[in-house]
């Protein structure tokens, strides 16, 4: 038993020595990006990659970073997670151990961000997820305490669930809700449960609470059940590729009530897939294209010029994730994983595309506000603001 162990350790030492030399690490700051380029939400991955490339190009055009004597350019390394949890984990591992990145941005969906964040946390590398709103992403799975190295640039589900429940009760004056959600997906499940809790606590009634599993296309059974319960509106905290099917099937079954959604609706793809069927419905999201500040306007203008499409919320949040990184790197003043983490956690205030944010004491969740959008004539339009 002794011999192989010795041989193994010798080999691994050699491996580390060999892999450590021969690269131009000295002049580069490497940032990893894990995006859903293929799989069930490629539109999310594409927006994320576009915004990331734009952010990196801008910082390099501005001269990169100057830490003392040393000048650094930023190198972006993009990994596809193929819309799978296991590939998100291996991508994170590859970026940390082989590519030696100082920080990772992504994955976006909570069901991929949670497993990837575990890897980042154990390896003590900063991971900022732009779009993962599930609380678990930034919390330790064993102790429930906040993770030290995992951050996000979006608000979290409890906040979003609260905003939507109160919006339905106070603004729309509807108090009989039905919910249909994907029970196999962290994000959908979390937001549905919080919505139900807050909605019922504030005097509403959830008359149907139905589920399905990822990749289902037929919702007729659940929707027939919902129809029988006669709700005043239906809440669908599901992804943009499924929502059109759910709304169309509901209409075919003769359900004519408004629908309410969460930030997973906020992709241009929804409008393409849904057509007129989604007109007049509401969802909560991170920013509104038509009600924006100077920073936002400049971002929208540049993005549209570069990629020929209006940036969706994923693009905006990815851009903000990089913005947070740049600010933290400048504060840290060294190329070091630990120093970057400490600077990021202490950011006093960051003016981003999706609003002002700062991290809560000892947590990776920012304090920021949400907006409610209405789908009108095939466009997302601003409807209301919701402050934390």
């Amino acid at each position: 038993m002794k011999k192989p162990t010795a041989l193994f350790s010798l080999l691994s030492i050699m491996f580390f020595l060999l892999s450590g030399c021969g690269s131009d690490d000295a002049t580069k700051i490497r940032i990893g990006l894990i995006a859903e380029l293929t799989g069930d939400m490629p539109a999310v991955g594409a927006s994320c990659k576009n915004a990331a490339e734009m952010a990196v190009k801008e910082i390099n055009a501005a001269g990169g970073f100057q830490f003392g004597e040393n000048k650094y350019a930023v190198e972006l390394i993009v990994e596809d997670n193929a819309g799978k949890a296991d590939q998100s984990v291996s991508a994170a591992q590859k970026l940390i151990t082989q590519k030696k990145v100082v920080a990772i941005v992504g994955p976006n969906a909570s069901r991929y961000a949670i497993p990837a964040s575990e890897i980042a946390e154990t390896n003590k590398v900063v991971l900022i997820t732009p779009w993962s709103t599930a609380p678990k992403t930034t919390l330790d799975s064993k102790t429930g305490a906040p993770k030290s190295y995992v951050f996000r640039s979006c608000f979290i589900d409890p906040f979003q669930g609260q905003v939507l429940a109160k919006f339905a009760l106070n603004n729309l004056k509807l108090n009989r809700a039905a919910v249909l959600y994907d029970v196999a997906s962290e994000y959908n499940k979390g937001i549905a449960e919080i919505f139900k809790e807050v909605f019922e606590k504030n005097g509403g009634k959830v008359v149907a609470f139905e589920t399905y599993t990822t990749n289902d296309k037929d919702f007729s059974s659940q929707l027939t059940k919902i129809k029988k319960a006669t709700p005043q509106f239906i809440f669908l905290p599901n992804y943009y590729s499924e929502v059109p099917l759910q709304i169309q099937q509901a209409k075919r079954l003769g359900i004519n009530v408004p629908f309410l959604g969460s930030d997973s609706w906020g992709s241009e793809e929804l409008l393409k897939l849904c057509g007129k069927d989604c007109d007049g419905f509401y969802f909560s999201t991170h920013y509104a294209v038509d009600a924006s500040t100077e920073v936002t306007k400049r971002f929208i203008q540049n993005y549209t010029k570069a990629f020929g499409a209006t940036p969706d919320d994923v693009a905006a949040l990815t851009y903000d994730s990089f913005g947070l990184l740049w600010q933290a790197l400048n504060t840290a003043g060294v190329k070091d994983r630990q120093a970057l983490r400490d600077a990021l956690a202490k950011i006093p205030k960051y003016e981003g595309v999706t609003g002002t944010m700062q991290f809560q004491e000892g947590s990776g969740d920012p304090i920021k506000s949400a907006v409610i959008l209405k789908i009108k004539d095939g466009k997302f339009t601003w409807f209301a603001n919701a402050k934390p």
Partner: protein
Amino acid sequence: MTYILQQILNALQLGSIYALIALGYTMVYGILTMINFAHGDLFMVGAFFCFLIAVYLQLPFLPTLMLTMFGVACLGVLIERMAYKPLRAAPRVSAIITALGVGLFLENFTLALSPYPKNIPPLLADKTWMIGSVTISSLQIIIIALSVSLMLILDFIVQRTKAGMAMRAISWDKTIVPLMGVPVNKIISLTFAIGTGLGGAAGMMYGLAYPVIDPYMGIMVGWKAFISAVVGGIGNVRGAMIGGFILGTVEILVAAFFPSTYRDFVAFTLLLILLIFRPYGILGRPSPQKV
């Protein structure tokens, strides 16, 4: 009462699509004793053909259906000739692994062309009628009617025509039948053409009923149709039809009367129990193994 009627209607729609796909599995198994695991992905290709024809050629419903079935049937025959025929004498396992490989190829090929989910434009005017308080959509009627008529045509071909007789004969005995002057290769190709053509038709109807299509849509549906074929008795054409309707009904009714979270769990437990008592499926017969 209307609630149950509505759910039964939902079950018929889902069941007829499962049945159509299950036919492809069962026909290929019947004639080659091989499970064509690429069938679910051929079903997906059918939906994408329909999308391409509807968007770029803008043909009406019937020509689109014909072209889709024809296109997928050609692809099916091509796959049989290129991938399965050379392996006919090889162990069954090689053929099954090849089928899985073909399925992965079709998925990733479609993925490489475009990973985005596509929206099939409505080819039929979507009307809904209220009978009492049961809602029926024109799409539902067309899907059920078309699947049932395709199945009746197939049943006629298999039971009443010369080609059908040859198919049944080959599935019975592959060594003696060629000596009687039956062109085995042609019949096998015909079987593949019909089986995959039906899969293509199912893909198109599925795409019309659930108009967001993506390269992975065939996996789960393919498995469920395979299970339908096994439940009905794999190798038996009528069994596949019955199996499809059973699975559709069980899935819908379980979600209708239990919390929908338990749907797959309860549905597949029921099917497992069924297989304990009828291990060869509802219409299947045990095939004696010669030593």
